[in-house]
C-alpha cells in the first residue's frame, strides 16, 4: 500500500452516515439563515468599521449601536423600481444575478463549523457540516468559477459599454487569480493528503497550515481578495472608472442579489481560508490545551470558527479602508508575473519535500543532505547573480518623440540639482511646471522674501527662507495671511 493512502486513512473524516433527510434539511436551513444574517451584520460591521477608520461614527441610530440599520436599507433596496434596460438581452440579464447568488450560497455546504456535536433537545449526534466529499476543495473552486459567470454575463447582457468593460475585466481577473488561488491550495492538499475539508481540518491538529505553508497562505490571501472583487482589486466595479462596472444597469431586487452574492462570497473565501489555513474550528493554541482539549469539543468549536471568520472579514474591511485601487495593467502584471510563479515554485518545493518524506525508503538522509547542498549552491548562485550589476537598464525607457528632449533636459536638471549643493531646482526646465522631487530644493519663494524683509536684515531673511523651503515651514506664513 502506498504512503498516500496511509496518510489519507490516518486522518478521520466526518461521518455523515447517521444523518437523516430531516437533519440534512435542518442543516441546510441553518446555513441559509446564518448566511443571510451574517450579510446583514456584515453591512453594519463594514460601515461602522470604515466609519471608525475615517474618524466618523457610521450608522448609529437604528437599534442598539445602529445594528438594525441594514434592515431598512435592505427593504428600501427591494422596494425600488425594478428597471430592465431596453437594450438588454432579457433572459441573460435576469439569469446573471441568479447565477451569482446561487453559487454564492453553495460553498458553505462543505465548510465544517465544528466536529460531531449533539443537537440540543435531541439525541442526534452529527458533524456540524452539511456534507463533505472527497473533492470538497475542488468543489469550492468550481463553484466560485461558476459564480463569476453572474458577473460576466450580467455585464454583457446589459448592452451598455461600462458594464461590458467591467465584465471583460472580471473575466481576465478570474482566469488569472483563480489560477494562483488553486496553486496555493494545492500545496495544502499535498501536505494534508486529502481534498475533503473535514480531513484537512483533522490534519491541522498539531500545526495550522498557515505556519507551515506561509507562502501558500500569502498567495491565497492576495488571490482571494482579487477573487471577490474587493479593494484594492475591485476593478470590475471600479466606480471611479466604470461607474459601477458590471452592475451599472441593475436596480432593485436584481442589484440586491449581486450585493448579497458579493458579501456571501467574502464569507465563502474567508471560511475556506479559515478551514484550510487556520485550523478550521480548532481552538487557538493556548486555549486548545485547557482541560485536555475540552474547548475542541461540543459546540465550542463553532465559536472559534466564527471568531476566525470575522477576523478575516475585519481584514477585508481594513484593506478597503486603507488601500487604493490598483491600475488594471499593474494588477495583471502582479498576478501573472509575481503570484503565479511564486505559487508554482512553492508547490514544487512542497511536492519535493513531501515526496522525499514519503517515498524514499533507502538512503533518505543522504538524499536530503544532497538536496540541501544543491539548494544552498543554487541560492549562492542566485545571490551572486542578484548582486551583479545589470547592464543597460537606465535611460532605455522610450519617451514620446516630441517631448523626449524636454524630458531629458529635465532629467539632467534634476540630477544636477541633486549633485550640486546650493543650486536650486528649475521647475520649468521641461517647458512646464513640475513639483520638486524629494531632495531637490525650490528657489526661495519671492512672496516669502517680501513678507520677511521688513522684519530684519535682508541677507538673514534670505538665508532663513532658503533653509525652510519645504511646505511645512511655509505654511504658518500663509495661514497668517489667510487669517488676516
Amino acid at each position, binding site marked *: 500500500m502506498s504512503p498516500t493512502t496511509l496518510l489519507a486513512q490516518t486522518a478521520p473524516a466526518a461521518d455523515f452516515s447517521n444523518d437523516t433527510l430531516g437533519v440534512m434539511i435542518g442543516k441546510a436551513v441553518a446555513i441559509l439563515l446564518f448566511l443571510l444574517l451574517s450579510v446583514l451584520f456584515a453591512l453594519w460591521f463594514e460601515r461602522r468599521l470604515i466609519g471608525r477608520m475615517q474618524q466618523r461614527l457610521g450608522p448609529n441610530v437604528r437599534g442598539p449601536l445602529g445594528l438594525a440599520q441594514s434592515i431598512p436599507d435592505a427593504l428600501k433596496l427591494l422596494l425600488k423600481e425594478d428597471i430592465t434596460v431596453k437594450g438588454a*438581452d432579457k433572459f441573460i440579464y435576469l439569469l446573471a444575478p441568479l447565477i451569482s447568488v446561487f453559487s454564492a450560497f453553495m460553498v458553505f455546504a462543505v465548510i465544517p463549523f465544528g466536529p460531531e456535536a449533539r443537537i440540543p433537545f435531541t439525541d442526534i449526534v452529527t458533524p456540524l457540516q452539511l456534507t463533505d466529499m472527497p473533492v470538497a476543495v475542488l468543489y469550492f473552486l468550481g463553484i466560485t468559477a461558476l459564480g463569476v459567470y453572474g458577473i460576466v454575463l450580467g455585464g454583457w447582457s446589459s448592452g451598455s459599454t461600462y458594464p461590458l468593460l467591467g465584465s471583460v475585466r472580471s473575466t481576465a481577473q478570474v*482566469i488569472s487569480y483563480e489560477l494562483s488561488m488553486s496553486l496555493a491550495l494545492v500545496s495544502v492538499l499535498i501536505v494534508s493528503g486529502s481534498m475533503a475539508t473535514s480531513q484537512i481540518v483533522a490534519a491541522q491538529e498539531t500545526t495550522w497550515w498557515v505556519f507551515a505553508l506561509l507562502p501558500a497562505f500569502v498567495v491565497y490571501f492576495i488571490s482571494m481578495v482579487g477573487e471577490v472583487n474587493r479593494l484594492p482589486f475591485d476593478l470590475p466595479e471600479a466606480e471611479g472608472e466604470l461607474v459601477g462596472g458590471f452592475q451599472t444597469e441593475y436596480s432593485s431586487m436584481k442589484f440586491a442579489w449581486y450585493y448579497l452574492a458579493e458579501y456571501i462570497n467574502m464569507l465563502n473565501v474567508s471560511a475556506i481560508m479559515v478551514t484550510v489555513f487556520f485550523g478550521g474550528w480548532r481552538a487557538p493554541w493556548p486555549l486548545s490545551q485547557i482541560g485536555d482539549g475540552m474547548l475542541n469539543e461540543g459546540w465550542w468549536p463553532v465559536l472559534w470558527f466564527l471568531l476566525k471568520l470575522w477576523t478575516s472579514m475585519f481584514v477585508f474591511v481594513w484593506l478597503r479602508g486603507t488601500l487604493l485601487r490598483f491600475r488594471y495593467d499593474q494588477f495583471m502584471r502582479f498576478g501573472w508575473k509575481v503570484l503565479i510563479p511564486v505559487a508554482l515554485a512553492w508547490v514544487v518545493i512542497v511536492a519535493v519535500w513531501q515526496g522525499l518524506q514519503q517515498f524514499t525508503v533507502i538512503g533518505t538522509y543522504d538524499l536530503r543532505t544532497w538536496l540541501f547542498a544543491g539548494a544552498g549552491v543554487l541560492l549562492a548562485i542566485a545571490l551572486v547573480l542578484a548582486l551583479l550589476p545589470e547592464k543597460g537598464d537606465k535611460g532605455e525607457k522610450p519617451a514620446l518623440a516630441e517631448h523626449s528632449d524636454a524630458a531629458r533636459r529635465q532629467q539632467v536638471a534634476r540630477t544636477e540639482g541633486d549633485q550640486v549643493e546650493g543650486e536650486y531646482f528649475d521647475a520649468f526646465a521641461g517647458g512646464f511646471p513640475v513639483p520638486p522631487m524629494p531632495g531637490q530644493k525650490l528657489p526661495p519663494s519671492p512672496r516669502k522674501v517680501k513678507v520677511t524683509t521688513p522684519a530684519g536684515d535682508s541677507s538673514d531673511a534670505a538665508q532663513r527662507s532658503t533653509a525652510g523651503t519645504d511646505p511645512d515651514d511655509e505654511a504658518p506664513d500663509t495661514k497668517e495671511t489667510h487669517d488676516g
Partner: protein
Amino acid sequence: MNVLAQAGLEISTGETVLFWVLAPIAVLCALSLLFTRRPVRIAVAMIAVLVSLAVFYIANEAPFLGVAQIVVYTGAIMMLFLFVIMLVGVDASEARTERLPGQRLIAAGAGLGLILLLVAVGSRATLPQGQGLAAANADSNAVGVARLIFGEYVFVFELVAALLITAAVGAIILAHRERVEPKVTQADLARRRLADYASGTGSVAPRPAPGVYARHNAADMPALDAAGEPIEHSITTVLRIRGQRGEIDTDQIEQIEATADHTSTKEVDG
C-alpha cells in the same frame, strides 16, 4: 436493457429522476449550437450542457472528474470562449448565405447517417453487465484515479503535460503582437498634457461635462459656456466623429435663460 438492470449494479430512483430531468435540458441546450444566432447565448447554453454533464459524471461515480469538469470547462475553457466572444465583437452573428451550395442539406444527411451508424454499432454491441465502481472507489475516487494517473499512466500524464505547455506557449506566440511604437505610459501622458498646457493649446483640467444646460440626460449635447456658445470638446470624440452631436434647441436655452433671469430678479427683490 433489462439484462443490464438485473446485474450487480443497481441504479437508484434518484439517479433515474436526475437523468430524465437533466438529459432533456442538456439536449435542448446543445441544440442551440445549431439554431441560436448570438454567440453569447450559445456559450451560455454550452455552459448548461457542460454543468449537466458534470452532474452525470458525479452520478456515474466519478466525483473527481465531475468537479474537474466544472473547474476546467466552466472555470477556464468557457470563460476563455466568452472572453474571445467579447473581444471579437459581441454581436458578430454570421451570414446566412451558404458558401457551398446545399451544405446544410448534406450536413443534415451526414448527421442522420452518423446517428444510423451509431445506432447500428450500438445495437450490435454486446455490452457487459454493469459492475459499478464500489470496489474501485474504495479509497475514495480521487485516490483511485490518482493511483492510475501517477502509476500506470504516468508517461501519458507527462506527455499531456508537455502538450499543455506547448499549447500555452503556442497561444502566446499566436496572440503576441510586436510593439512597433514606444509604449505610452501614464507619466508620458501627464507630461504631454502639461506640455500642451504650457504651450497654450490644452487644458490641465478635465473637459467640461456635456449636457449641462440640457433638460434631459444628454451625452450628445455640448455644454454651453458663459456666453451661451456650445463647447464642442465637451462631447466625446466618438459621438463627434459619428456625427451624432445633438442640435442645441435655442428656444429651450432662451426659456432657461428667462427662468434664470426670473429667479435672479426674484432674489434681488427678496
